[in-house]
């Protein structure tokens, strides 16, 4: 039976509203804007991934033989900048969030649809600046732009890159603003705060951080640009300026930013685990409190990136203390996900495998964060591969996996089609195995003392580095596979129907793909977000 005649396929939906380029580029429909974002961040992901592969290729042998030292430095800078600001920060909020939040709160669109489109253009503009930086000689400061290297010594395209990040910052500010206003003002009748799905809560908390932390990053990047462009010297030690001030301001943003990069993933995983355990999330209120306290207390731990940078030792200890505290809500959440499985009715679909991978890998990443927060250990492992492994476990093992899980979970909603079950499971497994092979050896390397951002290294580190590079190959397969079968499903996948997973969120109340204004009639909510019943059937 072809899709067109399938009764589960809606006659009219947001994708059939117009097929010209301008129907896409000038759209204010949040669902289409989500697609614009999806396309652009996927491009950036593969750009960053290609840089990662080159990094791993270079590191197969100890001497720096594949690329020159400067090229290597540009590669990891490009990789970090692109992955953080152009892929991971917008990943879940700008695609899944954009698509789903209005539907999950039962609204026709976000509060400011045109602003939403504008943020995509701002994102694109920022991306162009970054690409210009790459073409114009690359940037070699690392994603952290530390002064005085970035302001006075680097000969690379720092201005263009910093401007790119500065610009893209406004895109996330505007997205965050849009989400906050939407969540506050546009919830459907009956949808009280404590009936909201955790995905909405997570994006709400993320938006708060975006709105409150990103401007500080903007101002510090502005100072860098001004310093290089106009030759003034706020961070110049010769004038009595302080290079550490830069680090404080940078991490004041960038630590909360790491929670921008994990909270949405936590939201996705909560939805998926509840759905495929057919059970309400264990401890809904506890989850909400955890999300919000991560967002709030994440603002007072930035100094843990500067344990050996020269802040006072007592400041260091305070920051270590707060870091331990901010880890507690994550522990609660991890426990609650596993507890949700208890007495559930569990099916291992592809999204579920991704979600469970998330839980496992996030635990490893988070607990190694605890090792880093143990301040005396950090003196040894700071700026080594131990740190690299820690954050890849959280950001790649956690967030990217969560993102893919969410994409698989809502793909039927977004496209109206199902993808291959077999291939999606293969991809999820390849990802889990490849990931661990890539990054687990880096913990050992780091404790052995291999510093990061090293283009060449002593020979006895080679075995572990080769393992890591092999893993990256497997990982590449894990990431390329979905590209193929998801594309394939766009054309050949069977129609999914409104609610293929028999899930409970409001977004499942409507057709797949949804109509232009999401609902034929604005829903009236009478129950909590996860009214699943594991005893049924």
């Amino acid at each position, binding site marked *: 039976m072809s899709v067109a005649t399938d009764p589960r396929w809606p006659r009219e939906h947001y994708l059939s509203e117009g097929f010209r380029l301008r129907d896409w580029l000038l759209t204010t429909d949040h669902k289409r804007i989500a697609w614009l974002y999806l396309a652009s961040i996927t491009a950036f992901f593969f750009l960053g991934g290609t840089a990662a592969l080159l990094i791993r290729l270079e590191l197969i042998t100890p001497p720096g033989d594949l690329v020159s030292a400067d090229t290597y430095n540009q590669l990891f800078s490009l990789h970090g900048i692109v992955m953080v600001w152009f892929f991971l920060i917008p990943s879940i909020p700008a695609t899944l969030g954009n698509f789903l939040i209005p539907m999950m709160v039962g609204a026709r669109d976000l509060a400011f649809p045109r602003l939403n489109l504008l943020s995509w253009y701002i994102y694109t503009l920022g991306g162009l600046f970054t690409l210009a930086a790459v073409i114009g000689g690359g940037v070699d400061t690392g994603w952290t732009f530390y002064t005085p290297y970035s302001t006075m010594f680097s000969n690379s395209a720092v201005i263009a890159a910093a401007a790119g990040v500065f610009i893209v910052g406004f895109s996330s500010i505007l997205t965050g603003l849009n989400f906050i206003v939407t969540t506050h003002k*546009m919830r459907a009748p009956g949808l009280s705060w404590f009936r909201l799905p955790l995905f909405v809560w997570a994006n709400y908390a993320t938006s708060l951080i975006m709105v409150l932390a990103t401007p500080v990053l903007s*101002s510090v990047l502005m100072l860098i640009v001004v310093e290089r462009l106009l030759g003034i010297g706020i961070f110049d030690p010769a*004038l009595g300026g302080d290079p550490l001030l830069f680090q404080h301001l940078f991490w004041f943003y960038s630590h909360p930013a790491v929670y921008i990069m994990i909270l949405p993933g936590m939201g996705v995983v909560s939805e998926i685990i509840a759905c495929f355990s057919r059970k309400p999330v264990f401890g809904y209120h506890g989850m909400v409190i955890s999300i919000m306290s991560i967002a709030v207390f994440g603002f007072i731990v930035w100094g843990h990136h500067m344990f050996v940078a020269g802040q006072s030792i007592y400041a260091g200890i305070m920051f270590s203390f707060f870091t331990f505290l901010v880890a507690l809500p994550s522990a609660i959440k991890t426990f609650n996900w596993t507890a949700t499985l208890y007495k559930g009715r569990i099916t291992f679909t592809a999204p579920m495998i991704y979600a469970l991978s998330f839980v496992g890998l996030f635990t490893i990443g988070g607990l190694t964060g605890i090792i880093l927060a143990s301040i005396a250990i950090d003196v040894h492992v700071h700026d080594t591969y131990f740190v690299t492994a820690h954050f890849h476990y959280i950001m790649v093992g956690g967030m990217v996996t969560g993102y893919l899980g969410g994409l698989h979970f809502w793909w039927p909603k977004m496209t109206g089609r199902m993808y291959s079950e077999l291939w999606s499971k293969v991809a999820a497994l390849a990802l889990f195995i490849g990931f661990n092979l890539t990054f687990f050896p880096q913990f050992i390397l780091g404790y052995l003392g291999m510093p990061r951002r090293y283009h060449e290294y002593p020979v006895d580190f080679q075995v572990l580095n080769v393992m890591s590079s092999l893993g990256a190959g497997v990982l590449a397969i894990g990431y390329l596979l979905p590209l193929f079968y998801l594309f394939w499903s766009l054309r050949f996948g069977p129609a999914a129907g409104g609610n293929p997973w028999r899930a409970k969120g409001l977004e499942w109340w409507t057709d797949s793909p949804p109509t232009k204004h999401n609902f034929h009639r604005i829903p009236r909510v009478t129950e909590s977000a996860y009214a699943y019943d594991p005893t049924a059937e």
Partner: protein
Amino acid sequence: MPTTQPLNEAGQVAEQFNDIDQQVQSNLFGMWLFLSTELLLFGGVFAGFIVFRVIHGEAFAAAAGHLDLMLGSLNTALLLTSGLTMALAEQLVNNTRRRATLVMLLATIALGAIFIGIKGYEWYHEYEHHLMPVLGLPFEYPGEHPQQAELFFNFYFTLTGLHGFHMLVGLGLLSVIAILTWRWRDPPRIARQVQISGLYWAFVDVLWIVVFSLLYLLRS
């Protein structure tokens, strides 16, 4: 051209909203959020300034003495007055008094423009006295601690520049609103726009007060 459309009859509601009330509330809330991000944008630079103000207290206080307190105060007065005229404009537009609103808007724009002019004059003055350590221009500082003074002037130009930029954006915004008011197509909508821009303008006012106190008033 004035229309007789009464204000309580709301204009058109954007399609994503249920009613005009929701729309107005969302817009206001959005503007407040936006302003809080702006505050933090300045906050980063303020924080940096305050740190150095504490570290190099004496030098900064002395360097501040080289700013023109007279002109700075004059500018503060101008900006506060413009805040008043803007507030009046908000009142008047709510009473659908087109002409008076327009006058108040133009007055606000004029005051803002004079502010920028004076600021420009101050900058020129500093340029002439070689107190502009920008773009490799010579910096010749007559007092003690020339290096720290240079740092002070770096902050001075960054902060006043950033504020000036916000003023320019505000002036642009007000000019558009003034044109809309002159045309007077959809008064309720104009009223909402005046209100939102008023919020922004007030914010730029408040920022100036902080900039002014940090840079000009903490002097020796």
